[in-house]
């Protein structure tokens, strides 16, 4: 069951990112200019167009490593990164299971300047590794007395195995979808 959840989360992350890329291809101002520029290749107008050579690839060139707490997706994360604990950005390390409940935050992607909804699922049922990168960013978290807005919780509480291992960051939507 929990493997299914993990696969679902990964597929959701991929789908969200793919959707954004498609949107960037179809609707992006810069990519529209890129396409117009493409049509006009060879014409006299070509040199004056602000031509976007990325052709709508919105995520190319992220400067910050995904293993750094400064990576944009980790803006509201409280935990150890799974990609420094044997897993990846969106998948739990072998032997651990994705949490059924999670903390969800909003982070701005500096590449396209859009706000994304990020689900921080804990991976459960395995001891933490030594040397994993611990991040404590927690953007938009509120104090503990505002229970529903407080992230300092073991999100493995809804799993059979409640031991905390690490945290993944899965894209689940956009604020301005």
């Amino acid at each position: 069951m929990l493997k299914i959840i993990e696969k679902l989360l990964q597929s959701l992350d991929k789908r969200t990112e793919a959707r954004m890329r498609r949107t960037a291809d179809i609707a992006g101002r810069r990519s529209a200019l890129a396409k117009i520029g493409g049509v006009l290749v060879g014409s006299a107008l070509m040199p004056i167009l602000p031509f976007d050579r990325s052709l709508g690839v919105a995520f190319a060139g992220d400067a910050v490593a995904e293993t750094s707490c400064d990576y944009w997706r980790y803006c509201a994360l409280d935990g150890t990164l799974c990609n420094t604990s044997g897993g990846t950005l969106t998948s739990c390390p072998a032997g651990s299971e994705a949490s059924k409940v999670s903390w969800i935050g909003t982070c701005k992607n500096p590449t396209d300047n859009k706000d994304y909804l990020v689900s921080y699922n804990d991976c459960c049922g395995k001891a933490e590794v030594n040397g994993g990168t611990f991040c404590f960013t927690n953007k938009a978290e509120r104090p503990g007395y505002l229970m529903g807005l407080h992230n300092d919780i073991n999100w493995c509480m809804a799993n059979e195995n409640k031991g905390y291992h690490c945290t993944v960051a899965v894209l689940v939507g956009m604020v301005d979808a």
Partner: protein
Amino acid sequence: MTTSAFAAGHTPQVNYILRCAGCHGLDGTGSSIGGVPPLGLIKTFTSDPEGRLYVMHVPGVVNSGLSNQEIADVINYVAQRWGSPDLPFESFGLEEVNHLRSINISDVVSYRRDLTSRYISEGKRVPEYPWP
């Protein structure tokens, strides 16, 4: 649902993802081990005056940090998205939410227990609720 009501903030769907989906899930199914009921039977509550009062005192609603207008919009979104299609639904408006939230319920768990006992005796379906 009006768009002007949340033009300055988030859409009900985004507020649901940000404030509710962490526990109730992106598909509204909740988590029985985590003590989070599914949302598919919400219309059992919203079809009844005492149930409408309860919905506005659910801990996750009270602690959501949303405004009363945003709460109305999110509950309407949830009922329309996951509520049983065979049950009618009357939307919440700001005035009703203001009124219901101004009423004090001292023990929301007991209130729900009494409510669901009555629903069961009336032959209505109610979601699992693991809290003692």
